[in-house]
């Protein structure tokens, strides 16, 4: 068996990073983001990145740390409302942004990972999202053609990984991670917990090992909460 488990994040990314590359990253907001691997990408010094991710982190956490160090040339995202540095760089023309509707972004990664070059969706028809794209009529509705995304590198955050690289995500930290895992030429995962072979229920594996080339035990599991919203304890 090829050894997929790597000693640390820097070694896991060895030979995979180059300037101008496209990196897809899992996560929704700050939930389920590959914290450990993002720090390693920052440390590597790689630049002119195109990042594919639903969000752009916040100013000092998640993908925001790559933006803050001006490592990002282009973001392909659906919602970036939480990042002021992002907004500043975008309005100053320093950062290229391609907004995708959230479902379109998810489906573009799913399609890319499944070898499907393009698909049609109703989402965005009649809006600026459809400008410059083929619009085709099926039945009595118009659909816009969107293309699949294949990234040079995909980074995902799992809850558990077994020695083969089978992954299980936890609750809403699953989000984009399964699609991201499929759409990388190479996929590197970080898992909170490494478990022995045979201890994951084969019926409950979210990302089968074939999609994962390397993985590490996550050493950053801060899991910062963006909007801690609570109700009073019942009396």
């Amino acid at each position: 068996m090829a050894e997929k488990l790597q000693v640390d994040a820097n070694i896991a990314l060895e030979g995979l990073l180059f300037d101008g590359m496209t990196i897809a990253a899992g996560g929704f907001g700050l939930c389920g983001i590959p914290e450990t691997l993002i720090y390693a990408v920052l440390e590597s010094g790689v630049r002119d990145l195109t990042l594919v991710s639903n969000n752009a982190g916040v100013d000092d956490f998640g993908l925001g740390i790559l933006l803050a160090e001006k490592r990002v040339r282009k973001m392909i995202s659906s919602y970036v409302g939480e990042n002021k540095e992002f907004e500043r760089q975008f309005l100053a023309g320093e950062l290229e942004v391609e907004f995708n509707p959230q479902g379109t972004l998810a489906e573009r990664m799913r399609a890319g990972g499944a070898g499907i070059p393009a698909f049609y969706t109703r989402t965005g028809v009649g809006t600026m999202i459809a400008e410059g794209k083929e619009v085709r009529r099926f039945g009595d509705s118009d659909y816009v053609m969107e293309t699949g995304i294949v990234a040079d590198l995909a980074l995902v955050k799992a809850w558990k990984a077994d020695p083969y690289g089978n992954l299980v995500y936890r609750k809403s930290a699953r989000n984009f991670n399964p699609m991201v895992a499929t759409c990388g030429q190479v996929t590197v995962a970080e898992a909170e917990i490494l478990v022995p072979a045979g201890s994951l229920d084969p019926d409950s594996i979210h990302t089968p090992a074939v999609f994962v080339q390397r993985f590490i035990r996550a050493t950053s599991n801060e899991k910062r909460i963006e909007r801690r919203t609570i109700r009073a304890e019942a009396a």
Partner: protein
Amino acid sequence: MATDTSVKGWTRDQMAARAALEMHDGFTANLGIGIPTLVGNFIPPGVDVTLQSENGILGLGPFPTEREVDPDIINAGKQTITELDRTSYVSSADSFAMIRGGHIDLSVLGAMEVAENGDLANWMIPGQMIKGPGGAMDLVAGVRRIIVLMDHVSKSGSPKFRTHCTLPLTGANVVDMLITDLAVFDRKSRNVAFRLIELAPGVTIEEVRAKTEASFEA
């Protein structure tokens, strides 16, 4: 609850409560960020509704107590949330299969502008606001019925229910019902005009006309 006759129009909670009356037993619904989130507080007793959140939760629970907070359980507004006995977690692709595949009965969304033809603008102000569309474009394209909750006029007093949207669209001809702080407009299908069906307390039809640019039936 005593009725104060000096009060004019609906509060945000009252707008949300009005929208909650559109929930039918057995519905699966997606509530947008802001006032639409409040709708969940007003679902009538005996009406069983499953709330979906586009980041991948079907069956949203209430906000957690301090002890229940789990960073791996958030809603699409990135708020901490809890699960229920019916909850399932799914990937973003599966979540949007529910939305785009027409499996969600109702979505309640906020808006910057609604046009008389049902166009909706709620994601972008060119040169100013560049947050991105998030899941709104997918929701309006795929959910069976779209209700918009918004203030009747902008902070500067200009009408938000217009003949045409001036801002970039989120979706073309997608709004089925519009609830503002002054009135409720509905239409039976997306081929017909909106009809004024309710006025908020103390609000006259003349006032609504004066504060509306869109044409509507009354």
